[in-house]
């Protein structure tokens, strides 16, 4: 077998072995595990996965010229550092980074197996196109040219909105930002990424409650908690390294409470475990709050000073007597009382939620109910408290902050003229030129009015299939989606698999840009107009990456891209050049090898994303933090001594002002006990100063050292003038700041002056327990669309259908109108496994992980198994009420309660009983394939964010 050098000398696909993998840097690899026991592998590895082992040739001395590169794991949001040992461009070893204050060298299964990314064989190795149903290798030039021509033709016929594209939370901040910018310069808001189906309800709910849509504290801060409540979060499998801090907190005396329909591996460590019916979080939280109010455990002073609208919540909570809570959730009075009492007696307490709390048709209500509970107990804005929202992907926070969102611009700037004008200035393009890129007709805004496409939120990743399949007349844009580009997104993470298959087949053009072929490449029966472009992994490109706690870590490039892979930014550049807007889009960057340097892109982000304080984190500062990781305290994340004395690890945003201002980053959001310049803060004033005559600004509360002792609005040039601080600006700053707010003043002068006076640029207001701009201003319990308790629908009905919502007709009531609970008696919920991540393509292609979970399964309670006549280990059909069915193994266990079944969502590559192996490009199929749980999931979307419902639907299980 010939060696393939990455430099991309053309080489025909090798036909060796069953996999036909033209490797191999393997020859450089030290040893060969497979060589150790080829026969054993043959005996154990599933099916056609056997590969003839090659004798390992090893470089002379493994310790000669070994380069140690510090990088950050790409498998969840914790942000574990690791040290890659690289020799001659080959990733030879992986060492723990003990100095990292986030993980202290620790990893989970995925992190510990990272080195495989350095020589993975199951990738899309070169650009490919489908010709008459078969994959054919093509060159990058040909790929870019053909894709570009087809896109331009579609644009010509149907306008820019006929392209929809999924960006990625796996991309670096720079990559994700370029993806959003790419969509903008293409002239569409039809871009989205994983955050939509991850924490969109959290971001919306939390941001609308107190200002920023992010984890308020950090994993490390949990060390200080006295009580840790985890609701719909299985950190032991989803964020294993976070458990290090949680268990340390527990060892320090904190009570660990886990509330989950499933007895998770996290629950196994809990002091109190509460099992409740999936989809009844609001009822459960109001049940807790009922006891809090009943016993006067709420923090009355805190509520007076810092919270608006809790009295309205109190009225709703009064309805949730212990009896009603038990009727709806199934949790008895004692358990609810015990949790409420434990939380009240152990303050500060932190509240953790994940997908279990977000992926629901009323997910934004759940989120806000959690918030209300925490506010009532005075737990927000304090160390050891907070809403610790554990996010999923390594950079899903960053991609949410500055990446491809259909409903806002980087930094959460609105899709309004002001937002666009701000970014047009940052990008150095003329606003009118940018506006001309967009569709010029007007769209239905869903409220009886018309709206310009540029200011209209695009179609979300959860609904793109409807954008394709829905009648053209019902789609609130010029034409259906005709082309889709999956740029780092596995579609098996979205619901309604069978419909997705049809949508894929209806598309005129499908482009998959990914290190792996992913399910996008195989689900459908397309014959033509389908392209696979190999994108580099996180380890093959440098860039910054925002962990869940908002720390922005810098990832060094470990190895050059393998095979013919290209980094996201290079692909963006090549496509933009072909599509004719590269010169405008890339004018601010330093271009090296057809690729903007990540440093120059980050600097542009720094120059624009004032609103969330993404401005102080210059590449130099971030690199200095990575180099001095050992100086940071594990609990406070604060550097003690050294060149970064007093700064918080990797400058968690907001890190206000210019890098020169040296804001230390904010460890704990809204913490009034600290000076703003030490990371202190207060709730954000983003909803005006009063509502129906009630004051929205904080009362008798301000962050330490603030010169305005009381509430104040966001800083603008006018406010500075009123306060008499205007003259503290330099002349240059004055010229820029005149008529601007702190978020649009590119000089940063307003912020500088506000901070100088100890004031928070975003004002000082109350948190909103009452969010009047949401469908349910006070969170209400509403039964899931597919509910096993149809008897409760009358009392707790869902929303009315809407004609236009994110450009699409969206149904609630008409779905709930039918009772499915008789034919489909089991609640179907889904979640993570520790071995795999997301859609799983990457991790199922990693032999060390794939070995551990080789089959898709469903967890089913012994009672339900007996009812369905199913034995442990038996193959069963799990059938959803919309017709999707999956053939999987039954795992009979008490881990799930009666009436609930659980499936992991990482599998793909099978479809309704059929293995799609033959459809993968040769040698690129993951080691482990299985039915995607979402083949059997159903319709259902959140009324604020279009979050999909994956945690509460119905199904039945029958022997196969």
């Amino acid at each position, binding site marked *: 077998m010939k060696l393939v050098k990455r430099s991309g000398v053309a080489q025909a696909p090798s036909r060796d072995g069953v996999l036909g993998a033209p490797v191999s840097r393997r020859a450089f690899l030290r040893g060969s595990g497979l060589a*150790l026991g080829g026969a054993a592998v043959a*005996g154990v590895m599933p099916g056609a996965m056997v590969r003839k082992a090659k004798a*390992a040739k090893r470089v002379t001395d493994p310790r000669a010229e070994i380069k140690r590169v510090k990088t950050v794991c790409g498998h969840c949001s914790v942000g574990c550092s690791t040290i890659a040992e690289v020799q001659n461009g080959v990733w030879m070893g992986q*060492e723990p980074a003990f100095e990292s204050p986030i993980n202290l060298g620790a990893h989970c299964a995925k992190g*510990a197996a990272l080195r495989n990314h350095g020589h993975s064989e199951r990738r899309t190795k070169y650009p490919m196109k489908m010709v008459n149903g078969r994959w054919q290798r093509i060159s990058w030039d040909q790929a870019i040219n053909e894709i570009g021509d087809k896109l331009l033709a579609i644009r010509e016929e149907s306008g820019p909105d006929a392209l929809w594209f999924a960006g990625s939370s796996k991309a670096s901040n720079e990559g994700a930002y370029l993806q959003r910018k790419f969509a903008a310069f293409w002239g569409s808001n039809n871009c989205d990424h994983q955050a939509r189906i991850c924490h969109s309800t959290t971001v919306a709910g939390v941001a609308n409650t107190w200002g920023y849509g992010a984890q308020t504290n950090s994993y490390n801060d949990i060390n200080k908690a006295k009580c840790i409540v985890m609701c719909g979060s299985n950190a032991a499998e989803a964020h*294993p390294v976070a*458990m*290090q801090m949680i268990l340390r907190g527990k060892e320090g005396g904190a009570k660990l409470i886990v509330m989950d329909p499933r007895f998770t591996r996290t629950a196994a460590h809990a002091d109190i475990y509460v099992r409740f019916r999936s989809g009844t979080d609001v009822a459960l939280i109001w049940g807790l709050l009922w006891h809090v109010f009943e016993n006067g455990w709420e923090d009355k002073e805190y509520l007076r000073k810092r919270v608006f609208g809790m009295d309205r919540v109190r009225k709703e909570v009064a309805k949730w007597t212990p009896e009603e809570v038990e009727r709806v959730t199934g949790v008895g009075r004692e358990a609810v009382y015990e949790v409420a009492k434990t939380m009240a007696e152990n303050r500060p307490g932190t509240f953790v939620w994940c997908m279990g709390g977000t992926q629901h048709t009323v997910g934004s209500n759940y989120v806000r109910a959690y918030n209300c509970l925490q506010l009532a107990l005075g737990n927000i804005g304090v160390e050891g408290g907070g809403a610790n929202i554990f996010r999923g992907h390594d950079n899903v926070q960053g991609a949410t902050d500055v990446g491809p969102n259909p409903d806002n611009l980087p930094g959460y700037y609105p899709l309004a003229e002001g937002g666009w004008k701000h970014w047009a200035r940052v990008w150095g393009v003329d606003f009118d030129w940018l506006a001309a890129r967009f569709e010029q007709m007007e769209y239905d805004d869903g409220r009886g009015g018309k709206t310009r496409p540029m200011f209209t939120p695009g179609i979300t990743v959860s609904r793109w299939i409807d954008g394709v399949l829905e009648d053209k007349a019902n789609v609130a844009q010029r034409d259906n989606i005709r082309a889709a580009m999956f740029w780092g997104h596995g579609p098996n993470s979205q619901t309604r698999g069978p419909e997705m298959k049809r949508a894929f087949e209806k598309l005129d053009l499908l482009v998959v840009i990914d290190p792996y072929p992913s399910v996008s490449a195989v689900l459908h029966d397309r014959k033509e107009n389908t392209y696979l472009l190999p994108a580099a992994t996180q380890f093959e490109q440098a860039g910054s990456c925002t962990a869940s706690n908002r720390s922005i870590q810098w990832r060094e490039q470990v190895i050059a891209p393998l095979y013919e892979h290209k980094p996201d930014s290079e692909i963006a550049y090549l496509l933009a050049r072909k599509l004719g807007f590269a010169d405008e889009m890339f004018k601010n960057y330093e271009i090296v090898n057809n690729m903007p340097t990540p440093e120059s892109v980050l600097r542009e982000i720094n120059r624009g994303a004032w609103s969330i304080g993404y401005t102080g984190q210059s590449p130099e500062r971030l690199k200095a933090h990575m180099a001095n990781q050992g100086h940071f305290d594990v609990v406070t994340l604060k550097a003690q001594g050294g060149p970064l004395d007093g700064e918080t690890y990797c400058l968690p945003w907001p890190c206000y002002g210019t890098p020169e201002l040296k804001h230390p980053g904010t460890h704990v959001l809204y913490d009034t006990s600290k000076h703003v310049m030490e990371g202190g803060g207060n709730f954000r004033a983003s909803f005006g100063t009063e509502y129906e005559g009630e004051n929205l600004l904080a009362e008798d509360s301000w962050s330490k050292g603030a010169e305005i002792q009381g509430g104040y609005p966001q800083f603008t040039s006018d406010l500075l003038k009123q306060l008499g601080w205007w003259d503290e600006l330099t002349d240059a700053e004055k010229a820029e700041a005149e008529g601007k707010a702190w978020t649009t003043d590119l000089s940063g002068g307003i912020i500088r002056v506000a901070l100088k006076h100890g004031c928070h640029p975003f004002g000082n207001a109350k948190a909103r327990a009452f969010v009047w701009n949401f469908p349910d201003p006070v969170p209400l319990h509403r039964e899931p669309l597919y509910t096993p308790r149809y008897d409760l629908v009358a009392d707790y009905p869902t929303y009315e259908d809407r004609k236009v919502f994110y450009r699409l007709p969206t149904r609630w009531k008409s779905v709930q109108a039918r009772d499915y609970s008789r034919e489909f008696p089991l609640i179907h919920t889904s979640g993570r496994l520790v071995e795999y991540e997301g859609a799983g393509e990457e991790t199922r292609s990693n032999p060390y992980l794939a070995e551990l979970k080789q089959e898709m399964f469903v*967890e089913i309670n012994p009672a339900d198994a007996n009812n369905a006549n199913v034995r442990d280990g038996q193959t069963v059909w799990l059938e959803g009420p919309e017709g999707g069915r999956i053939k999987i193994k039954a795992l009979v266990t008490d881990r799930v309660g009666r009436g609930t079944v659980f499936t992991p969502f990482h599998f793909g590559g099978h479809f309704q009983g059929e293995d799609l192996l033959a459809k993968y490009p040769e040698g690129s199929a993951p080691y482990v394939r299985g039915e995607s749980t979402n083949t059997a999931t159903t319709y259902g979307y959140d009324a604020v964010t279009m979050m999909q419902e994956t945690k509460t639907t119905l199904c039945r299980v029958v022997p196969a």
Partner: protein
Amino acid sequence: MARMKFLCDAERCIECQACVTACKSEHEVPWGVNRRRVIVMDDGLPGEKSVSVACMHCSDAPCAAVCPVDCFYTTADGIVLHDKDLCIGCGYCFYACPFGAPQYPQQSAFGVRGKMDKCTFCAGGPEPTHSEAEYVKYGANRVADGKLPLCAEMCATKALLAGDGDVVSDIYRQRVMRRGGRPQTWGWQAAYGTT
């Protein structure tokens, strides 16, 4: 003299399999051979606990005692290693080991197993340190570089501890004191006797 030991803190172990994949990746252990594994007791039930198990490097190692060809040896700091050139794959160490540590690349008729493979405490084997032969047969030799087994170094929650028995038990004891409770040095009795 330092005595190398493993200790798994079951209160912290979350069955995340980091130890398993760290080992697999570091030594390129083939499919089906597991130098380390995680065992969960009462899986899915209240009281669920897990422990990561591998070769414990016993003081009076049963594997060494029963080996017909006497291929085991113990380093001065208590690491139990073996010589694959001598091993005949009889399987006796697998029967004898209380922890199920010995693994073989094959399992087939007529007792064909191949050479026994087990956790080396990341200390390689009887080949020149850092040689290719050592890596291919036994895996990386981290101990010679002053590093500890990667499974423990990468443990997600620092549940799995490895190193000098005195240091390890000190770390563990402090932790237990912090949380209140009695030490549960799981497996130490079986592996290290009363010392």
